[in-house]
């Protein structure tokens, strides 16, 4: 009986969720280049990284580098050099060059891919673009399949307030990029809404020209 009540509760919650929408009223948006100024130019950046996922903690170093073919490589290893993953992003393409066996799960890779695509702003060239003005900001949104990538700015599009990844109705995660220096953010934060998962990146200026 309790189990049935639980199931019905979940169903009601699911039904309620599907009715509510955080992004109602998105309108198609024409060409708008204002987002381009926020797109991080990761020529080469090293970040001190902290990952917290459902009570587990992982720290390490994330290096992000733009390669000669304009793809962006991301390698995450622990402080002692033990590599966790090596990903490549190029427009719509995504390559897993390496992933540590215990992390090698479709759901993990998919989540990381989408989270970092939001941060890298890989969808800015998409023609599936939308816009809505809300009380908490101006949403410049890009659709990729069932996913929406929202970039929330102030009215003049001079400040990127936050980024959000969502389904059709509900926010999945939120991210921020702050304190840009030479086009590269010093701080990047990722926080998921539906389960306890955060990624915190703080840039390490390890090269003299940085």
């Amino acid at each position, binding site marked *: 009986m309790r189990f049935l009540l639980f199931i019905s509760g979940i169903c009601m919650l699911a039904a309620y969720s599907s009715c509510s929408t955080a992004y109602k009223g998105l309108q198609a948006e024409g060409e708008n280049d204002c987002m381009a100024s926020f797109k991080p130019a990761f020529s*080469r950046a*090293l970040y*001190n990284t*902290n990952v917290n996922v459902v009570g587990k*903690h992982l*720290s390490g*170093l994330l*290096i992000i*580098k733009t*390669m000669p073919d304009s793809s962006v*490589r991301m*390698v995450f*290893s622990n*402080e*002692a*050099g*033990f*590599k966790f993953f*090596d990903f490549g992003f190029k427009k719509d393409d995504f390559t897993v*060059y*390496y992933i540590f*066996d*215990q992390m090698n799960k479709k759901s993990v890779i998919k989540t990381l891919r989408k989270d970092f695509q939001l941060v890298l702003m890989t969808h800015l060239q998409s023609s599936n673009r939308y816009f809505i003005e809300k009380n908490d900001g101006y949403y410049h949104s890009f659709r990729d399949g069932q996913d929406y990538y929202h970039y929330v700015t102030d009215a003049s599009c001079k400040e990127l307030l936050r980024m959000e990844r969502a389904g059709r109705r509900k926010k999945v995660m939120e991210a921020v990029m702050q304190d840009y220096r030479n086009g590269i953010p010093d701080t990047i934060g990722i926080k998921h809404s539906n389960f306890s998962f955060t990624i*915190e990146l*703080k840039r*390490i*200026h*390890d090269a003299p020209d940085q």
Partner: protein
Amino acid sequence: MRNLILICVLIMAAFHVSAQYPGYTAIKDINAFQTGFAAASQKTTSIKSDFVQEKNLSLLADKIVSKGKFWFKKENMVRMEYTQPFQYLMIINGQNIYVKDSQKENKISAKSNKLFQQINKIIIDCVKGEALESGDFNTRIFEGKESYLAELSPVNKNLQALFKNINVIVEKKNYEVTGIEMHEPSGDNTIIHFNNRQLNTTLPDALFAVH
């Protein structure tokens, strides 16, 4: 004809070795090396050293350099403290591992995690020189002008996925370990150089306390 083929194979093998480790050739007297190394390892009760770690990312043509301090005390206590360009502390004390990063501190029992157990054993065995005799690796020894290079190739499949081989660099004059190179199957590697080494100084156990 057979002899010709044999000579060709030997020449190719010799080229392969010298190409693999420039400046090194396969050692002639393995026994002499093993005896000298074992004697030096036995005499070493503690090591205090600075270290420089290079993580070389081959496809990215990039490297991450970090520095810190290293302590070892027999039988199985290691403290590695990274100080630049980030703060990170790792203590291995027997089966216990303590890690403190920029955000959290964590105590892990190597017993609960087979991978940690293996990596823990590799670090201790490399420093103590026991990895050379371990059944976990196939070992080849090479000789350079001033140092030996002990190439350890993992036998275990799990370790093979992580490391193509681990090279331990040993100084010729005193058989001290001056470097450890961990080569990954992808071509990336992590190289640790030990500088300003001090052997057999008194190191308090508190240095290796796992809180």
